[in-house]
């Protein structure tokens, strides 16, 4: 069995969003997890990355002004 190589904080942080996206190779996933198991600061980075993703995903949609909506509806009707 090969032991997972340790990675520095900079490398772990660089991969956090891809880690959350499951967009990194399984061996890199393991390296990030191993790093997170002992690094409190990077665990904080991970929590913040999760919060930021939720913030973006749930951010309020840009409101369509009534006059723009009306113009677009008229545009659709004229097609």
């Amino acid at each position: 069995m090969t032991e997972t190589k340790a990675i520095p904080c900079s490398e772990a942080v660089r991969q956090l969003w891809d880690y959350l996206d499951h967009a990194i190779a399984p061996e890199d996933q393991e390296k990030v997890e191993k790093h997170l198991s002992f690094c409190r600061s990077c665990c904080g980075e991970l929590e913040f990355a999760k919060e930021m993703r939720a913030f973006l995903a749930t951010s309020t949609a840009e409101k369509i002004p009534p006059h723009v909506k009306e113009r677009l509806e008229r545009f659709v009707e004229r097609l």
Partner: protein
Amino acid sequence: MSEAAIRDRTKEGFQELVLTELPALYSLARRLVRDGAEDLVQEALLQAFRAYGTLREDGAAGRWLKTILVNVFRDQVRKRSRTVDERPMGDLSDFSLYRTLVDEDPFPYSDTLHTDFLQVFDSEDLREVLIRLPDIYRVPLVLRYMDGFATKEIARLLEAPLGTILARLHRGRRLFEREMWAYAREAGLLTKERAR
């Protein structure tokens, strides 16, 4: 394709289908362009109407329309500029918003510093930050994290290799976080009144 899922591919069917999608389309357009969101939506609607026969499921209309809008936007960007503004990482690679907030501690009495920081941004502030980013970073970021497109789908839509999109997402996130911090300071979002 079930019968119930299909509406008549008529002009009236198209109108009925797209009217409910107008707010979402406009919202996406506003996040993609500083000016001209309405024009972008109109051009997308025009192209969607021409391609209406290719829509297989009415239930997929929202994503179908957004895809067309992104295609129109991509083509407009290409016409405007032949060169791609690949901003070098430079000192960006060392920036961490998480650490900056810990170091600068803008809300000294807060037990939830990072959450509080995000909460001072309303939708207009968020748009201002997004619009500051170069197109090549903003577009993948908006599509992936705000509109829920898969990374592979973004690569296909923007006609770029998957590795390029992943790299732009990475740089875009760093740039976005740095601009959030800069904007929060410039716009006075870190005052006590805003950070209630």
